[in-house]
């Protein structure tokens, strides 16, 4: 048993209660470790607010979700009507619903920016690999959460979007048809699908999500935050053992983040109160028509945050599969000739490449489209081991690396835009190039991230006081 402490003589009731609790639960210890004595680098810039904002949006989604669940009916015959009931008859229901629907888009905006911050400053590099991996898990959960939540209003886009995505699973060889049947619970999207998606959306996925968020924060506070210079602040400590370039999270970053929160809420409210449909991107117009299994909409587009991946799926045509096969074969030949591998490794590469090309040509392009779409997300998990640059932060990388990142972002946005549009020949070529750029960025990273003249990294962070 741990040693029992006693409050000093004459201490107030609050102090005595705290001592009582601290003897039984590490309250003060947790507070110190995660707030008052958690040292964060003092040179954070604006990119560093999105983590706190993501937490804010998560809490908002959970709270508004609880209230929506009180009035929503997960029943194919009643779902659409119950959303309109929330919008019209539940006091302030419209506000709660709009907060939740706008919050979904805000969540993705904040998370995409948060992830891009990680790209810019190498926040996924050693020793923060697990922080990054938990984060990727959160991103996956978020996508599942958004996809299943979007079915619940039971509009045309809800219905047909779910139909299209669940059908993709049927492209998986051998187990596909049974797998999609298992997900749907029926041969078409229907009441059974709505009920299970509701269950996943309100309890299963949020539980996993919260666990991952806790793990993400615990891992982060164990290793400490990275910063825009990519310098480890724990390398320079003062006499008391605190990082000289660090600053206690509370109060410095709490007041800083509250400021960020207020700015975020201002922008969020602009959309929420004056354009809750987000121009048809946050709430799609077609979704104000109740789901009709007999009437397929002319143009089915997923919500904006999925469109980059949807573009990659559509880009994977037979032509694209041939291109991939050629790239794979050339890559294998290059690796064998120039890679400097041992003879056994060369044989292994050749065998793997031949099998891969064979498989590419054996299965349907639709299946590879699903693989490409899934791979585009899964590849993020490997980022810590793909990046071989000697420095973390983009500040000390060769200037042309910035162009590589810019190209990546431009193509990612272009893929997102094209995914929201009806398919076109020109658009499809651009998405095919975009898909190659996206995967090239990651798969060639072990090579390009080492090239060029790197700038000297300072020992201490660069900081100009406010």
């Amino acid at each position: 048993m741990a040693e029992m402490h006693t409050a000093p003589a004459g201490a107030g009731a609050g102090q005595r209660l705290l001592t009582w609790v601290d003897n039984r639960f590490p309250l003060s210890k947790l507070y110190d470790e995660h707030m008052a004595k958690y040292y964060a680098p003092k040179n954070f810039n604006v990119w560093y607010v999105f983590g706190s904002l993501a937490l804010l949006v998560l809490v908002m989604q959970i709270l508004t979700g609880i209230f929506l669940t009180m009035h929503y009916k997960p029943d194919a015959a009643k779902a659409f009507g119950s959303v309109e009931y929330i919008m019209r008859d539940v006091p302030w229901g419209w506000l709660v619903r709009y907060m939740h629907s706008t919050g979904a888009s805000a969540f993705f905006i904040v998370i995409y920016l948060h992830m891009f911050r990680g790209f810019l400053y190498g926040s996924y590099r050693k020793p923060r690999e697990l922080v990054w991996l938990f984060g990727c898990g959160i991103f996956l959960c978020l996508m599942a959460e958004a996809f299943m939540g979007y079915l619940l209003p039971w509009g045309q886009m809800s219905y047909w979007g779910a139909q299209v995505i669940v059908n993709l699973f049927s492209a998986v060889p051998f187990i596909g048809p049974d797998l999609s049947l298992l997900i749907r619970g029926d041969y078409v999207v229907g009441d059974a699908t709505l009920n299970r998606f509701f269950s996943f959306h309100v309890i299963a996925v949020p539980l996993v999500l919260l666990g991952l968020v806790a793990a993400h924060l615990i891992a982060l506070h164990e290793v400490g935050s990275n910063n825009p210079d990519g310098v480890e602040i724990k390398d320079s400590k003062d006499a008391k053992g605190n990082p000289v370039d660090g600053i206690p999270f509370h109060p410095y970053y709490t007041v800083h983040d509250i400021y960020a929160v207020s700015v975020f809420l201002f922008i969020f409210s602009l959309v929420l109160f004056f354009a809750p449909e987000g121009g048809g991107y946050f709430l799609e117009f077609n979704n104000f028509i109740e789901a009709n299994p007999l009437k397929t909409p002319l143009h089915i587009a997923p919500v904006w945050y999925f469109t980059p991946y949807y573009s990659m799926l559509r880009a994977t045509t037979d032509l694209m599969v041939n291109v991939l096969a050629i790239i794979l074969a050339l890559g294998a030949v290059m690796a064998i000739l120039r890679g400097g591998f041992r003879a056994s490794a060369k044989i292994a590469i050749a065998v793997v490449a031949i099998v891969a090309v064979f498989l590419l040509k054996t299965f349907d392009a639709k299946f590879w489209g699903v693989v490409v779409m899934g791979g585009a997300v899964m590849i993020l998990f490997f980022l810590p081991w793909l990046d071989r640059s000697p420095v973390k932060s983009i500040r000390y990388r060769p200037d042309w690396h910035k162009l590589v990142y810019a190209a990546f972002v431009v193509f990612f946005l272009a893929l997102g835009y094209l995914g929201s549009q009806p398919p076109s020949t020109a658009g499809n070529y651009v998405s095919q190039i975009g898909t190659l750029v996206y995967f090239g960025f990651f798969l060639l990273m072990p090579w390009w991230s080492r090239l060029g003249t790197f700038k000297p990294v300072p020992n201490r962070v660069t900081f100009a006081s406010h």
Partner: protein
Amino acid sequence: MKKLLLSLLAAFAFALPAHANEGGYPWDRFPVTKMTDQASLQNGARIFVNYCLNCHSAAYMRYNRLNAIGLSDDEIRKNLLFTTDKVGEGMKSVLDPRQAKDWFGTAPPDLSVIARSRAEIGKGTGADYLYTLWRTFYRDDTKPTGWNNLAFPDIAMPHALWQLQGERRAKFVEAKDPHEEGKTVHRFAGFEQITPGTLSDLQYDEAVGDLVAYLQWMGEPSQGTRIRVGVGVLIFLALFVAVTWRLSAAYWRTVH
């Protein structure tokens, strides 16, 4: 870093004008000022209940929600309550959907959120569409109902407001296809009045504008509250931003 952001912005700027127009008859602009005119909304409700509610329903819209556009329960009961006898009921239609399907080939859709559902990115709002729809009906004897529409070709609904507008014919000309050499396209070249309606053109446009204003309002009856609350929230948040900005700065002044 700044360069990176600038190049991102530039990429966005290039992406936007490439927006594909869905094609079809271009939509007129609905006069949005009608949304703040209570008399227009009330007149729209009157037209809606008299002309639309016979076949269409607006099941999610309760009659007494009309209080919000200045109609009392008594006024509603006396003038607008044709399909039910309780003001708390939804606006149901008396038409049997199965009969409707036999008559028109399709059941008339519920109109509660019709204005929200008909918007198109790059083309206009749902109100623009409805405003155009009601001003582009014409006689077409090749159709089962005898009516056709420019905004909604082959529409199953006959011109429900024909007594107000009168009957019109649409003139079409064969014009050269600008995209393909040697081909012609069937192009609309104006309407021709056959029989007069009870309203003048101007009065008809006003009436349709009122109807569409009502439909737009009915799609989201809380939209007025939403905007009023929004203004208050933004004023509060603007002050909050100022306070938190100074608070943060006060703490960070001591950090060197």
